[in-house]
């Protein structure tokens, strides 16, 4: 199981196994303020991070961070 969550510290607290950092509570898997092309890239990045998280073996609560914005 992988949980995409904007409130990832809350997800950590309840002990979710794989947590993917999301953008914001009203739009976890994208950013409607971005131009469509950049929003598309962001959405793909979040979903592929979640898929990678599912492929990863974890022993404890683990947070996966999509590459976004200046970090990307």
């Amino acid at each position: 199981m992988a949980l995409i969550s904007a409130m990832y510290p809350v997800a950590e607290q309840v002990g979710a196994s794989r947590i993917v950092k999301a953008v914001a509570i009203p739009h976890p898997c994208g950013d409607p303020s971005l131009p469509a092309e950049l929003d598309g890239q962001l959405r793909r990045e979040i979903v592929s991070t979640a898929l990678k998280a599912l492929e990863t073996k974890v022993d404890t609560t683990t947070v996966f961070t999509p590459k976004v914005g200046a970090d990307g």
Partner: protein
Amino acid sequence: MRLEMAEFPVRQIRLGDANRYQDGVLDVDRDDLTRLVLRDARIQSARFEIATPGDPVRVTGIRDAVEPRAKFGAEGQVFPGVLGPVTPVGGGVTHRLSRMTVLATAAYEGTIRAGTGVQRSALLDMAGDGAAASRFSALSHLVLIVEIKKGLAELEAHGAIQKAEFEVARKLAESTRGLAPARVEIFESHLARRGVPRVALVQGCLTDAQQAHSGVSYYGLPIRESLTTAIDANELLDGAVTVNTTRCVAYSPTSWDWQNHPLALALHRAQAAGRLSFGGVMLERIAFDNFHGKEVVAHNTAQLAVQLGVDAALVTWIGSGNAFVEVMLTIRALEQCGVKTTLVTYEYGGKDGIDSPLLYYVPEANAAVSSGSRDRWIELLEAEKIVGPYEAIKVLTYPGAPLTSARGRFTLDARDMIVGGVDNWGGDSWACELF
């Protein structure tokens, strides 16, 4: 700021031919007050009823409650930015009619059908178990029942209800002109005492930035995605902080609650007793929609507390849901800056009290005061009389929910629909039993 608050307790409200206060009895002139309210073209009709503690009455359609207050002498005004200009308040002489409210009720369907902007109204039982669930059942109420023009959007409807409510409240308090109060209390907001801790109140405010009215206003301006704001504690006493009167939900305090903020009053009184120095009130907007925003506002509050030279803070909040994350992050940020904190919060816990009481927590939150659960179910018994605009209500709030007779017996899953059904700030009396 130095405010002299003259108290005129009301033990009975009567319908009369003049607005007059004498020995705890308030006579109200319904015709005069109706004329006052109908000056606003947005109000179609207005009437008044009285609800007294112990009456077998259920009040419906409640939008807000306010304590009648008025200003005397050359200085100041009440409800700045709503009834008057944006000029400073919190000084001079204020008269209050205590032990009563003007309870604003209105039928209003709204133009928004669902979500955080949808209109909501609350109930109040004046007798029975329902009465025990609300601090407002112990007060006398002049119930204002307005009908607003059809088709008004939320912000216009709010403006009409609030103006009517506040104008009636001010007019009633003005009837104490020249009378001797039962009690006078002095509130000094800049009394720096040496050798005692300086304690501030951090007031988290959930505001819906995207809605026409965000939920909490300062001088009539809805607070949106602001950073933390330091205000003078006396401003609360003169009605500088007000609420959205199209949405009355128990986890959002009423105007009466802001005027009578129990934590602000307790800090004032502890200062007067020489135990501490009241370092003021910080309004902290909470419910940022990403974690970055939540971390920044928590940091910002701690920075402001340090700038204000605060040693300790009471941290409390209004609202529900993810906004509590900021509250905990704020406690952590304050403690990391050397500011000691105590949290005052209601609990969740579910209808039977067995679910998690808090959404989120940090290890630094090592002192907390619970003001009870907002989640426990409650059965309301039959009421003999309905006061207010609705004879039928929706017990569930989803769009298209069925109507139930307001007079009948029904069960509420939580206290949100009872005005005063949630004790946000620990103003009520609570006992605790260990199991």
